[in-house]
C-alpha cells in the first residue's frame, strides 16, 4: 500500500505511525504537526522523521506559527496546498489524517 499520512498534531498520533507499515509511506506535516519538522526537544529531532524519507511540511502552517524553512530539519521538504493535492492524487493510494 502507498500511504500518505497527514500529521496534524504534535503530541498525539505518533503511536499510529510507529506501527504503520507501507510499501511507500509519506508524511505531510500540517497544523501543529509542523513542530515535528521544525523543532527539537532536548536537542533531538522528532523520531517520526526516521520513519520514511518522504517527508513534507505545509509552508502556510509553518509560517503561521512563526517558523520558516530555516527551522526545518534537512530531511523535510516545504510544500504548498497545490503540492498536497498532487501528492494525494499522484503519489499515494490512500491518505489518512492524524
Amino acid at each position, binding site marked *: *500500500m502507498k*500511504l500518505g499520512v497527514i500529521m496534524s498534531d504534535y503530541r498525539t498520533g505518533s*503511536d*499510529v505511525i510507529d*506501527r*504503520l*507499515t507501507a510499501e511507500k509511506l509519506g508524511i505531510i506535516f500540517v497544523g501543529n504537526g509542523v513542530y515535528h519538522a521544525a523543532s527539537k526537544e532536548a536537542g533531538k529531532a522528532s523520531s517520526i522523521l526516521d520513519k520514511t524519507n518522504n517527508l513534507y511540511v505545509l509552508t502556510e502552517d509553518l509560517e503561521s506559527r512563526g517558523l520558516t524553512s530555516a527551522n526545518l530539519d534537512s530531511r523535510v521538504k516545504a510544500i504548498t496546498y497545490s503540492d498536497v493535492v498532487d501528492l494525494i492524487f499522484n503519489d499515494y493510494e*490512500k*491518505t*489518512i*489524517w*492524524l
Partner: protein
Amino acid sequence: MATKKLLFVARSLPYKTEASRLALTHAISSQSVEIYLKDGDLVEATIAFVGDGVMNCLKNQQAMKHYGITSIEGHMKNSLLLDMKVMICKEDLAKFGIKEDALLMDADDIGGEVKAQIVPYSEIQKEMESVDHLLFC
C-alpha cells in the same frame, strides 16, 4: 456491479469527542447507501478499534442513565446486528489489561449473529491494505 470497501479506524477515547460515535454511525449508514448508487453497487464498511479506541468496546456503558444519550456500546451492538465486521486490537487490549469478558463482543440479545473479533494488529494492518479507503477517527 462493484463493491467499495471502507475501513473506519477508531483510535479516540469515547464521549469527550464525537469521533468514535461518528465512526460507528457513519459505518452503520453503509447499510442504506444503495439509494444513491446504481443497482448492485455497494459500499461495505468495517470498523477497527485501536490504541485508546479499544476503550469504546467496554460493556455496561451507562451513558443513557447518566447523560440521556445512547452509549457507544449500543452503536457497536447495532453494527454487529447488521453483520458488520468489528475488529478490536489484541495488543492494545493487553496494554490496558482488558480481558474479553469486559468487552461488548456480540449482539445475541437483539438477534445478532456476528461477533466482534479480537485480532492482532497485523490483521488490522492487512485490512487497511485490502480496503479502498481508510478513515481514521
